[in-house]
């Protein structure tokens, strides 16, 4: 039977009521993707993460049993969306746990002080010019007349203009009585005359700074005339349906020939943010003349539709680390039709523009002080150095501290436990974001839990529960767990499982092992480190002392550690507002030395050593003291 004779059926997703028509035999996950419904899926549809649970209310389907569902789930009609093919019209309910939490994605980036140092010299600027009119004594052509005037305002060797702009030039000049606003953009060594408008529109110049994260996308709307952030907005990266980490997405793209789809998703996310921000602030899209994106190497590849497949295969080489400015429209980004898109340069396949932005924003490249920059995202990247040298590495730390791969883990949003401590009497105290009833635990809360657990002997130094007779420990659906909060207000209980702790331990071990490899390679000890910048999506609050207690950061004085939030965004904004900051970023990217941990002989050993609380070599953590286990 020819393939195109396949029957078509309608899938209805409750409670949204969204419907989609698909071929017989399509999986529910593909159907959900088609209609744009977010179903959590870490493995990208390979059937081993067990996250993409749906309830089929009505209809015929065939599902492959995976053993990832509990017996009571199966009897209640729960299926894995990626393993379930439809054979009739289907009505299915998407559990609430898939809902993307809105709110506190980390959008603040004003904690880095370096950002206000540079004077404003935006990448794309508008200049109002009143030109001398041609006369019998002045035969200079309109085009060259304009160039002469621009040269008075912009330091540049070469100015270039597209034919379309030249074609309309004379008309605009004559109509405006030689009083025009020119938009000029910085393109490498040359300046492009992007547009010519009648009259003075030079005060209406805006730009977007975008933090292109694997999990979240953050946008800031910037008034480039005064150098001020007008508004911010964030959303989840909708590529998440194709895998929660970018390696899964590359595999998905390769296997399904879906890089167009991946590109469209991210471009669409960015466009939606831009529309939200421009509408809310009554800014005309055509007045947005530039967009700066800061993302890891893979995200930048997805956006520009560069071939990312080399990133995941030995010898781990990207298509491009440095991409020249392009027309934003070429990447499907809707701003001014001739507006420019700049992507921060990468260092290597696993150290991207987001880290270069972090190095720029924290000023690590210009300080005398030996500084460590640690950015905990879906990966854990580490930069060490000062104004004379910079080295970096990336560990596949995993997204545990972003709340992924943790039973009740969640992003920093309303209802997330962001602070946790154990009181002297042994009772638990926690605080949620927005003081809401707890629905999960975000990165800072997870960090607190591990640190407090080991300090109070609830887990031993391997991360295993020390005393299984503790009444708060029980056997849950995902193995042994410790109850953090009982069920309340219609929400399930919040617990942390032995597996969660093991994942968090691996994550912190990956980060610290990377730090150790960089330190050992340069024969640097903790005492030599003068400042530590901790960046990332833990939440808005962070107990840096706990990062030492669990052995994620080296044992330095706590006052040397600065939690700096989203440095990827901070760096993107600096570049946007200062042409020389882009040059600095390029010089950082080309001068930073990359250590490939996958081929580093000492990394695995460091990783094993770091898989202990705080570390196998206790002499590295003299300030960390735990209560000895009381059980003898």
């Amino acid at each position: 039977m020819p393939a195109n004779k396949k029957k078509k059926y309608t899938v209805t997703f409750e409670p949204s009521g969204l419907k989609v028509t698909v071929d017989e035999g399509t999986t529910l996950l593909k159907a959900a993707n088609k209609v744009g419904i977010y179903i959590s899926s870490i493995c990208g549809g390979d059937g081993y993460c067990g996250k993409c649970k749906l309830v089929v209310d009505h209809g015929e389907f065939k599902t492959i049993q995976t053993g990832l569902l509990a017996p009571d789930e199966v009897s209640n009609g729960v299926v894995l969306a990626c393993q379930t093919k439809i054979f009739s019209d289907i009505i299915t309910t998407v559990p609430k746990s898939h809902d993307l939490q809105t709110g506190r994605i980390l959008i603040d980036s004003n904690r880095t002080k370096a950002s206000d140092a540079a004077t404003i010299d935006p990448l794309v600027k508008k200049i109002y010019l009143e030109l001398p009119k041609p006369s019998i004594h002045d035969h200079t052509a309109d085009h060259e007349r304009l160039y002469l005037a621009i040269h008075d305002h912009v330091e540049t060797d070469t100015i270039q203009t597209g034919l379309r702009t030249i074609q309309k030039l004379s008309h605009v000049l004559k109509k405006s009585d030689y009083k025009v606003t020119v938009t000029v953009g910085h393109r490498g060594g040359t300046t492009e005359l992007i547009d010519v408008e009648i009259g003075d529109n030079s005060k209406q110049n805006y730009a977007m700074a975008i933090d292109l994260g694997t999990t979240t996308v953050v946008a800031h709307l910037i008034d480039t005339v005064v150098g001020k952030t007008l508004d911010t907005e964030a959303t989840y990266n909708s590529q998440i349906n194709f895998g929660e980490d970018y390696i899964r997405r590359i595999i998905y793209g390769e296997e399904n020939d879906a890089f167009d789809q991946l590109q469209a998703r991210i471009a669409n996310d960015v466009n939606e943010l831009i529309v939200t921000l421009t509408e809310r602030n009554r800014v005309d899209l055509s007045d947005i003349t530039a967009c700066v994106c800061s993302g890891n190497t893979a995200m930048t590849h997805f956006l520009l539709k560069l071939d990312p497949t080399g990133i995941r295969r030995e010898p781990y080489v990207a298509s491009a680390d440095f991409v020249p400015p392009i027309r934003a429209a070429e990447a499907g980004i809707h701003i001014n039709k001739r507006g420019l898109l700049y992507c921060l340069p990468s260092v290597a396949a696993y150290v991207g523009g987001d880290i270069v932005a972090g190095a720029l924003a924290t000023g690590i490249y210009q300080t005398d002080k030996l500084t460590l920059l640690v950015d905990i995202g879906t990966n854990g990247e580490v930069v060490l150095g000062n104004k004379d040298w910079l080295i970096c590495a990336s560990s596949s730390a995993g997204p545990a501290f972003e709340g992924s791969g943790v039973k009740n883990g969640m992003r920093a949003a309303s209802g997330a436990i962001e602070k946790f401590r154990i009181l002297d009497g042994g009772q638990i105290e926690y605080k949620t974001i927005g003081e809401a009833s707890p629905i999960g635990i975000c990165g800072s809360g997870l960090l607190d839990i591990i640190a407090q657990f080991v300090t109070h002997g609830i887990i031993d130094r391997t991360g295993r529960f020390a005393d299984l007779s503790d009444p708060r420990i029980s056997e849950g659906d995902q193995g042994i767990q410790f109850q953090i909060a009982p069920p309340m207000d219609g929400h399930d209980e919040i617990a942390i499982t032995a597996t969660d702790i093991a994942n968090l331990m691996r994550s912190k071990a990956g980060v610290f092992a990377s730090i150790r490899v960089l330190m050992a390679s340069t024969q640097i000890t903790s005492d030599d480190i003068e400042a530590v910048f901790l960046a990332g999506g833990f939440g808005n609050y962070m107990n840096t002392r706990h990062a030492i207690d669990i052995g994620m950061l080296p044992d330095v004085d706590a006052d040397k550690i600065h939690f700096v939030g989203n440095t990827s965004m901070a760096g993107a904004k600096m570049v946007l507002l200062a042409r020389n900051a882009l040059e600095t970023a390029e010089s950082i990217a080309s001068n930073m030395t990359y250590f490939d941990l996958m081929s580093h002989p000492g990394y695995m050993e460091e990783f094993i050593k770091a898989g202990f609380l705080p570390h196998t070599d206790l002499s590295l953590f003299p300030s960390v003291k735990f209560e000895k286990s009381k059980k003898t």
Partner: protein
Amino acid sequence: MAIPQVAQNFAGSVTEVTLGATAENGGTRTSTVTIGGAKNIVHAGTPADSAGRKPVIAMDVLDVAPTDWPDELMAQYADVADDPAAWAKKCVEQFGADMICIKFDGVHPDKGDKTAEDAVKVTKDVLAAVGVPIALWGCENNDKDNKVMPAVSQAAKGENCLIGIVEEDNYKALTAITLADGHHLITGAPLDINIAKQVNILVTDMGFPAEKIVTFQSTGALGYGIEYAYSIGERQRLATLAGDKTMAMPMICDVGYESWRVKEAKLEGVPEWGEAADRGPMWEATTAICLLQAGADIIRMRHPRAVAMVKSYINQIWD
């Protein structure tokens, strides 16, 4: 020209450990052994200054008659295989064992599933039959060991035995009872120096004294991973010498079991490999001597001829 004597002094040394308690220390042993004390790597420095105590041989006695031992090995114990006390006596009196290691194979759920009472009886019988210090080695099934070994430890209370093994994922029950009964403890790790160190930290976190620990890094026989066992032993010694107190324990190796399960040690009817009766003991002795050079302090062994060869080697090097 004479070769100059190059002496190197290190910050650390291997902890000296005395096993067994005589009557004056509240036990019933007629002899004790003291091991450890090395201040250098094996063969380096002058023996008097840095070699430390002589390594010792602990001969294996099983709580159940072996069913899978090669004929050559079994022939040595055919008369005593069903009687651990007589077996132990033979090892000490005829083969010169410095220690006896009771290996509780028979309590393993898959190898007889004997009870704690059975294990206690074997322990008491062996303690009564011989005067040398005793090591008590579980069946390496965590659940079963956690049931049986506390009873065994209790039965041997006051005798200052060596009890094992505790590992990263199962250390609490045995550490607690060993501490309570005043024995020494063996910490085990799967040929991973970092995990070995982690286990030592975990048990000392429970209040177990570091100076009463003996480490077991896992053993590989000649041709079957000996290089891993050797280099881990060497790394432990180097860490000790560098002053790492969490690694400064004496080390035990299980040479008997590992050597006698390799095909070269037991295969018969291969004349070009030499006499089967010689091959096994040679394999065991060679493995033992190699690991002694890495820094082993106690060697668990099985064949009397291998024991004789290794004792001869120890006496030549350490005396």
